[in-house]
């Protein structure tokens, strides 16, 4: 038995099964040149590989039409003629001829500034891989042979890998690479398959068929456990399953404390699949739609029409309030198609609302799309990184211009669309009274607020320990913002990681936070916790917290509060 402690649990849960190490297939061509006498054999080999590939694809095409397009590529006459030509006239073996043709075509497609052709480049690569597998006589699905409960272990997993996976027996993932936002992490969370990523060197610790316990709750991996440990974990896994079922059974019930204070539980989303997931997890709205993904996953600024379609789909999926944050780039988020100057302090530089107010056309395109979508549901606009009343007014003035244009063209929109701001700068905290007078709502972004208040770069590992949202300065700032908002009857929400922090919950609730916006998968447990808390006691706790001088004192108070109930 061997236990490994890990840091990056990408998708929660406890599972166990046989280890399955994904063998990275070597699809590189044999580089050997052939003799004249071998030409005919190589051509035959190639033609047979193509025929087998087309046959494979024919089966796949029944369920997915993308493979019909792949069939066209596999049987393309130019592919055939060029490869045969390389074999006959350049004495390349079939593998090498194929590789050279695919590489050259892919490069050509990728270099054309055209999204459609770039996708075709991916098709070319896929088809090339399939033919190559037949040429080399290896199986094209690296997951073949999984037929009992399995933990899949790989260096990393790409979308094209997981597309081949039959999930029937896959219980968990462990990868050496990848962060919590990598493809495998996101896919695992969406499918609710436990996963641990970033375990450097893990593949040299295990062999196929070792028995693995993947504990993504305790952040542990156990290889070949003894019987006692195994039983212990089977029990733990069972308890976790029951707890999850218990939590989810409360979906549909309001997040109301035992003494009757109700708050709203919203989801943070970045696209339409997230919106669907938010509905499934019982979100009562969206507290943060990160519109920057629309921009970052594009090859140009997204058009009004593209944005309109997405925003409309989001609000029609939710049928509940959707707060959409306008473009929040700069800092660590860049666009492939726009050149940003190199800045000394990007987080204190040209980012978020500052960019929007400067690039007025880009901003207006987004605002018009938002307004048009507001005819289809409760869309609310949120401006990021505001430091002054002037900025908020300037943004709303541009919004007013857009409204006039739409009115002139008789395009419908919600005239009383709500506009609010993110509270994430110390300036907005200090001026929260003045801002509260103007806005419709506040949403506290704790990630940036903590970084700016404490002057601690959240990406800097050396000072990562100092980054702590329980710092008295952050606690008091949050309290002040909620008070200011409520003084003017405005809703105050939170959309940072802190909103789903179990220890922060009683404090935030006690301070009077109205809306908690979080990753959809956290909603069920937050709902459960809210329904077991007493608002009056939380209020007392919050008051105490605001007069503590150290993080240690804050944590002591919270820990005592939470243990008292148990």
């Amino acid at each position, binding site marked *: 038995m061997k236990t490994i402690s890990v840091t990056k649990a990408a998708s929660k849960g406890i599972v166990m099964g046989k280890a399955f190490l994904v063998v990275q297939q070597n699809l590189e061509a044999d580089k050997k040149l052939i003799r004249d006498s071998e030409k005919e054999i190589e051509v035959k080999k190639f033609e047979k590989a193509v025929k087998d590939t087309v046959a494979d694809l024919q089966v796949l095409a029944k369920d997915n039409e993308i493979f019909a*397009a792949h069939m*066209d*590529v596999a049987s*393309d006459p*130019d*592919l055939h003629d060029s490869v045969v030509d390389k074999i006959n006239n350049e004495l390349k073996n079939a593998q090498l001829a194929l590789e050279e043709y695919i590489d050259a*075509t892919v490069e050509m*497609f990728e270099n054309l500034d055209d999204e*459609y*052709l770039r996708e075709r480049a991916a098709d070319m690569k896929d088809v090339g891989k399939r033919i190559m597998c037949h040429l080399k006589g290896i199986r094209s699905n690296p997951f073949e042979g999984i037929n009992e409960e399995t933990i899949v272990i790989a260096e990393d997993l790409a979308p094209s890998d997981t597309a081949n996976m039959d999930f029937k027996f896959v219980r968990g993932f462990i990868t050496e690479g990848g962060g919590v936002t990598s493809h495998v992490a996101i896919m695992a969370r969406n499918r609710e398959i436990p996963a641990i990523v970033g375990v450097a060197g893990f593949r040299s610790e295990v062999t196929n068929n070792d028995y693995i316990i993947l504990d993504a709750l305790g952040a542990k991996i156990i290889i070949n456990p003894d019987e006692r440990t195994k039983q212990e974990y089977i029990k733990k896994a069972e308890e976790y399953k029951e707890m999850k079922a218990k939590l989810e059974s409360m979906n549909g019930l309001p997040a109301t404390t035992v003494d009757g204070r109700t708050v709203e539980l919203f989801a943070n989303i970045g696209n339409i699949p997230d919106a669907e997931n938010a509905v499934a997890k019982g979100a009562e709205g969206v507290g943060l739609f990160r519109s920057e993904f629309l921009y970052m996953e594009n090859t140009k600024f997204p058009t009004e029409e593209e944005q309109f379609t997405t925003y409309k789909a989001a609000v029609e999926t939710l049928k509940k309030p959707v707060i959409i944050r306008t473009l929040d780039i700069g800092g660590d988020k860049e666009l492939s198609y726009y050149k940003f100057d190199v800045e000394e302090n990007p987080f204190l530089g040209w980012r978020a609302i500052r960019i929007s107010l400067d690039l007025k056309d880009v901003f207006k395109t987004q605002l018009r799309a938002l307004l048009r979508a507001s005819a289809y549901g409760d869309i609310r606009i949120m401006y990021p990184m505001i430091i002054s009343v002037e900025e908020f007014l300037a943004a709303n003035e541009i919004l007013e211009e857009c409204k006039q244009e739409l009115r002139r063209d008789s395009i419908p929109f919600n005239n009383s669309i709500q506009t609010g701001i993110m509270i994430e700068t110390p300036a907005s905290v200090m001026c929260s009274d003045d801002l509260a007078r103007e806005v419709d709502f506040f949403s506290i972004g704790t990630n940036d607020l903590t970084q700016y208040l404490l002057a601690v770069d959240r990406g800097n590992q050396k000072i990562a320990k100092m980054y702590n949202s329980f710092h008295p300065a952050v606690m008091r700032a949050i309290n002040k913002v909620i008070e200011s908002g409520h003084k003017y009857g405005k809703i105050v929400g939170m959309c940072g990681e802190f909103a789903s922090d179990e220890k922060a919950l009683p404090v935030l609730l006690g301070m009077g936070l109205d809306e908690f916006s979080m990753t959809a998968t956290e909603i069920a447990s937050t709902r459960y916790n809210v329904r077991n808390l007493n608002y009056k006691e939380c209020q007392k706790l919050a008051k105490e917290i605001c007069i503590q001088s150290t993080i240690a004192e804050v944590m002591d108070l919270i820990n005592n509060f939470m243990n008292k109930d148990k």
Partner: protein
Amino acid sequence: MVSKKVTLTNKTGLHARPASNLVAFVKKFQSTVTIINGEKKANAASIINVLTLGAKQGTELEIVADGADEAVAVEEIAKYIADLKE
């Protein structure tokens, strides 16, 4: 061998679905059909080739057919290209 010139008027050009439709249409004929866009030549039966022509709306293309049904092929393919809508 016969040839004919035709101008692309559809919005997409020889791209995406119009390109794959054309390739499927060309396969009806026995002749070898080549499409020429300036310096670039494409085997009209090859979707890979046709896409790399990068022929956009407004481009003048030359259709060349060589084979038993070359006369009909050139006429019908030129008409097919001129009539592309999408």
